[in-house]
Structures are given as structure tokens and as C-alpha cells.
């Protein structure tokens, strides 16, 4: 019983870790590739073209 509980808790926290990593990744990509704010857009301009983000 104890073992089962421990296993479930561990797999929950792994799923949480994966979700955190994926969300953090999407957040960074929104900033570097998609966000339209002029300051971000201009600073990221060359990189966005080189990485073919559909940003404007």
C-alpha cells in the first residue's frame, strides 16, 4: 500500500515537471518568436527571420 502511494506520488511529480518544462518552453518561444511588442520585435528581428518564425 505504502509502495503504491509512493509510486503514484512520484509519477505525479514527474508529470508536473514535464508540464512545467513544456510551458516554460512555450513561454520563451512566444517571447523570442511571436510577441508583437515593438521592442521585442526589433531586437529579435534578425533571429526571427533566420529561424522562419511567422511573426509579421
Amino acid at each position: 500500500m505504502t509502495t503504491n502511494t509512493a509510486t503514484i506520488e512520484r509519477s505525479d511529480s514527474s508529470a508536473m515537471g514535464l508540464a512545467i518544462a513544456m510551458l516554460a518552453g512555450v513561454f520563451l518561444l512566444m517571447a523570442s518568436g511571436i510577441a508583437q511588442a515593438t521592442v521585442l520585435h526589433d531586437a529579435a528581428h534578425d533571429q526571427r527571420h533566420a529561424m522562419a518564425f511567422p511573426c509579421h
Partner: protein
Amino acid sequence: MTKNLLTSAVLAGVAAGLIAALLQLTFVIPHLMEGELYETGERIHFATDGSTQSDRIQPSIGTDFARHGMTLAFNMITYTGYGLILLALMVFANSKGHVITPRNGLIWGIAGFIAVQLAPGIGQPPVLPGAIGSEVGPRQAWWAMTIIVTAIALALIAFGKGWTALLSVPLLLAPHLIGAPYLDTYFGVAPPELSARFAALSFGTALAGWSSLGFLCAWFWTKADAA
């Protein structure tokens, strides 16, 4: 696990972003800056005499370190973003019994390149500044859909049991049969040779960046996991 995952992805992303940025500054950015001369009208293809010839004179990337520093910084951010997602998927596959090694990390990276750069790039090739495109919303939607569908198709090829791998064929084709949004007019601001070369060089550097990213994600992860 979460700590190892985040640290490995960030280290790999920063390193791959550095590699990608150096390659871009060597190969891609000089073409981009040549394209900008046509964007701003400093050079005009199809000049007033009706000639379709333009001189190929590539500007040097110059000494605008602030500008190129931003290219470096944003490459690191982009590759860290992709690295977090890529390594999360690798770790998930690992939990299903697929071992992570730097060598198969390389394959993951190449698969990432296919899903994120090549597949959407077939419909929407990398464009020079000044290229005129259709409305951005539908293009972003097609881009995101193509990446997700292609990634699922590659996962089916890699991990699908029996005939399920064949489902990848309609998935790989679907976005291209639907077709990326496009305009009914060609504007041809920059010479076609320059645009083509820019697109090809973008793909080449992205392949190097993504291969490095996959390899390094796996490398840092296996080091952190063993510690």
C-alpha cells in the same frame, strides 16, 4: 527530476543557441543584410531601365554589436525554449523505456528540425526582410498546426507499434494538402537567387542548431542523471 530537466535544457539551449547564432552570423545574416538593401530601396531589382540584373555585392555584417548581440541572445532564448520542450518529450519517452543517449539525442534533434523548421518551411519558406506575405494570423495557425501534426507523425514512425506507423503518411501530407496561406501576387522585392539562398542557408544553420540541441540535451541530461 524537474531540476535536472530544467538545468539540462537551459544549458543545452544556451550552447546550441550560441552555435546557431555563430553560424547565422557567418552564413545567413550577410544575406539578410543584402536583402535589407532591397527592402529599403537602396538597391532596386528590376531597375527603371527594365533590366532584370542586379549586382551581387554582399555588405559586411559590420560592427553593429548591439544588433548582432540581440541575434545571439534571442537564439539562446529560442533554442532554450525548444530545448525545454524537446527534453521534456525525451524524458517522457524515457519513462516509457526508451533510453536517452547523446547519440539518439542527435536523432531527436534532427526530428525536431524536421517538425519545427523543415515541414512548416516547405509551405512557408524563410523569407528576407521586406518580403510581402499574407495576413499573419492564419500563417501562424498553419505553422503551429504543421509542427504539431508532423511531430505526432514522427513519434508514430519512431514508437508506433506495427501498422500504426503508416498513419504518419496522411499526417505528414495533411498540412501540405490543406496548403499554407499565400497571396495571389508575386512581389519579388529582392532577387530570387538571393531569397532562395537565404532560405537554404536558414535551413542549413537550423539543422546544425537542432542537431546540437538534441545532442546536448541528452548529454547534459545523462550527466545530471548519473550525478
